[in-house]
């Protein structure tokens, strides 16, 4: 606790006078903390509750179990099998000495990576005492392999990727974790100019679309959008996995008819006069997660303090990026060749939300991209339902269990609290194209779709 106060006291981002923001002064805060049992107990109760919940997802049976044997006995029994201490320690010791100061963090040059990238030129990493090298990487498969190979300590990944890696889809199962989401919204369906009179998705039969990766929100959102409009994404259209930089070139060459891609690629196609923005991804699901900040669970448990510091830097950077008044400065900071290597005008349009749509209109949507780091379990459960829906996973899926394991919502909340930020409520209403999603009934959700591959 104590050691990162020094960062915060001098910080201009937090105006509150104590470290959690709820008390008038630091001494009042300390008093309150002592009365509630202090930091360590708070951390362990967070983690323990999470573990108990994961083990007994059915609330009445969990309560019955705890009641009959007593909470502490139950925990002692559970910790026989699970190295509970590790994870608890990882977060409780977050304020201790850093195990490792020189880190490598991989990223793909798209605006989704904004918090990870801007934390470098704007000094959010160094504020936490970290010397981070942000390394540009050629593609999602390479990011995955380099992170698994430990060349990168942490990386920017599409949010379904850590789930896929943890489940062993497309690689060996290796436990990965997502302590923070990079961005929400910020994608778009871009079509070639020749389709400007063919914008109704019901007419899209036979078209060829590019997506960045099979395990991507882009894939699931595009499939969802097509299927809701009666187009079967597997038989009526062609979906191709294409690295983002190749998308604009392919659109120009008319190899593809359009793509659902991350920005700045969508805006870049407009900038070069190759395509137009048909819809923003927020029109499919407003507030959808896109990319995530990920690292292996092994890195978390072996370097708990470094990990906590890294997470603080990312949360701090996200909070800064979320403020509209900072967006212009960020666009300029991340445009040079060392980072995104893209024209400032393009980044500006993506980040400020005042953009040219490619058809001669200037549109304004300040929520085109947003930076809210909280990794809700329900995000992971939704992703899993789509993996199931499109046949990427077969058989029974432990939706809640995997979500808890990979998306570290409780841990993110505790770090946010320590930073004096208010973590959001632990549940979030998800509505995709007018259809509500209930994370407690994932199977029923999957069954409710007419077009699926089960």
């Amino acid at each position, binding site marked *: 606790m104590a050691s990162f106060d020094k960062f915060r006291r001098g910080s201009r981002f937090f105006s509150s006078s104590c470290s959690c923001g709820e008390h008038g002064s630091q001494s009042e805060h300390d008093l309150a903390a002592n009365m509630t049992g202090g930091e360590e107990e708070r951390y362990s109760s967070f983690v323990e509750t999470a573990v108990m919940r994961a083990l007994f997802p059915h609330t009445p049976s969990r309560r019955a179990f705890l009641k009959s044997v007593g909470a502490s006995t139950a925990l002692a029994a559970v910790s026989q099998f699970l190295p509970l201490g590790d994870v608890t320690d990882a977060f409780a010791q977050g304020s201790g000495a850093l195990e490792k100061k020189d880190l490598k963090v991989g990223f793909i*040059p798209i605006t989704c990576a904004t918090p990870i990238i801007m934390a470098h030129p704007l000094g959010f990493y160094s504020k936490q005492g970290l010397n981070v*090298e*942000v*390394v*540009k*990487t*050629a*593609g999602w*498969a*390479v990011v995955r*392999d*380099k992170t*698994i*190979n*430990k*060349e990168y300590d942490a990386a920017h990944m599409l949010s379904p990727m850590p789930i896929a890696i943890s489940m062993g889809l497309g690689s060996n199962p290796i436990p990965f974790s997502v302590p923070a989401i990079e961005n929400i919204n910020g994608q778009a369906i871009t079509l070639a100019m020749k389709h400007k009179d063919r914008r109704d998705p019901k007419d899209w039969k036979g078209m060829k679309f590019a997506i960045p990766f099979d395990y991507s929100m882009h894939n699931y959102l595009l499939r969802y959008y097509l299927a809701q409009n009666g187009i079967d994404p597997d038989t009526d259209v062609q979906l191709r996995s294409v690295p983002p*930089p*190749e998308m*604009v*070139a392919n659109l*120009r060459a008319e190899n593809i008819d359009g793509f659902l891609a991350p920005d700045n690629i969508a805006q*870049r196609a*407009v*900038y*070069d*006069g190759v395509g137009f923005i048909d819809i923003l991804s927020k029109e499919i699901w407003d507030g959808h997660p896109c990319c995530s900040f990920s690292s292996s669970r092994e890195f978390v448990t072996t370097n708990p303090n470094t990990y906590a510091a890294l997470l603080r830097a990312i949360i701090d950077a996200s909070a800064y990026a979320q403020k509209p008044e900072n967006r212009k400065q960020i666009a300029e900071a991340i445009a*040079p*060749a*060392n*980072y995104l*290597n*893209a*024209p400032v*005008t393009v980044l500006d*349009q993506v980040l400020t939300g*005042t*953009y*040219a749509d490619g058809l*001669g*209109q*200037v549109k304004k949507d300040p929520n085109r991209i947003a930076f809210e780091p909280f990794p809700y379990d329900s995000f992971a459960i939704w992703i899993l339902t789509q993996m199931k829906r499109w046949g990427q996973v077969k058989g029974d899926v432990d939706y809640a269990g995997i979500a808890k394991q990979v998306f570290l919502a409780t841990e993110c909340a505790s770090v946010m609290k320590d930073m004096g930020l208010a973590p959001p409520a632990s549940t979030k209403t998800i509505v995709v194209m007018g259809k509500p999603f209930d994370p407690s009934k994932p199977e029923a959700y999957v069954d409710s779709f007419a077009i699926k591959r089960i």
Partner: protein
Amino acid sequence: MSLPLNVRAALVSVLLLAGFLLVWQGATAGFGASSGGLPAGMDPEYAKLMGLTATTGKSAMPSPVDVGGQLLKLLSDPFYDKGPNDKGLGIQLAYSLGRVLLGYGIAVLVAVPLGFLIGMSALMSRALDPFIQVLKPISPLAWMPLALYTIKDSGISAIFVIFICSVWPMLLNTAFGVASVRKEWLNVARTLEVGPLKRAFTVILPAAAPTILTGMRISIGIAWLVIVAAEMLVGGTGIGYFVWNEWNNLSITNVIIAILIIGVTGMVLDQILAAVARLVTFPE
């Protein structure tokens, strides 16, 4: 025409280049440049958000003058280092050359001795032939995922891929060169009771050297081809990464410059080995 052939050839080369540049300049200039203004009915506020290609109809293809100017700019400061993802052309080239020389060096160390053994034994030569023929045509990009997965280090993977792609021509040529040393020379050596090791070094090696060098020359060409592909995939540093990074930014100017530099470097590497080959060639 009394000019020597060399001079005439050089003249034709220069003329061809000048003609090519002229056509290029002509093809890229002239689009929309005459009007200069915005297309009719375009909102100026909208135009500010768009690229020049979209507003003025400027060709996305740079003219040779653009490329020349950018080339001078890049060459005037080839060794700058602005962080891990942005380094000068000279540094990128040095990284690529380092990787190529390492991978290629290992390939030479493996291929020449192994080729010797294969060439001296008709049995091994026939037995190994199917494997070599299968492994030879595999593209570097096909090796890369396997290398990344097993070696677990992208830098070493790139070097491994150069090694595995450049080893085969040298191996085949060495084996062929050794196998086709003239029987009379070997018989003379046998008559003079030369030991096997001495025979290998004083008779076979000099006789096979031109063929071996030809193999090495083919291999360095392949190694240089491979490095660009490998670096585009693995990223980080090198001329291949430079191409990829500029492609990402859709900067055709810089991609053309990279193509030029890759070509010139490849030619220099090839000429060095050609010079070495001339040294060991003997008149029969």
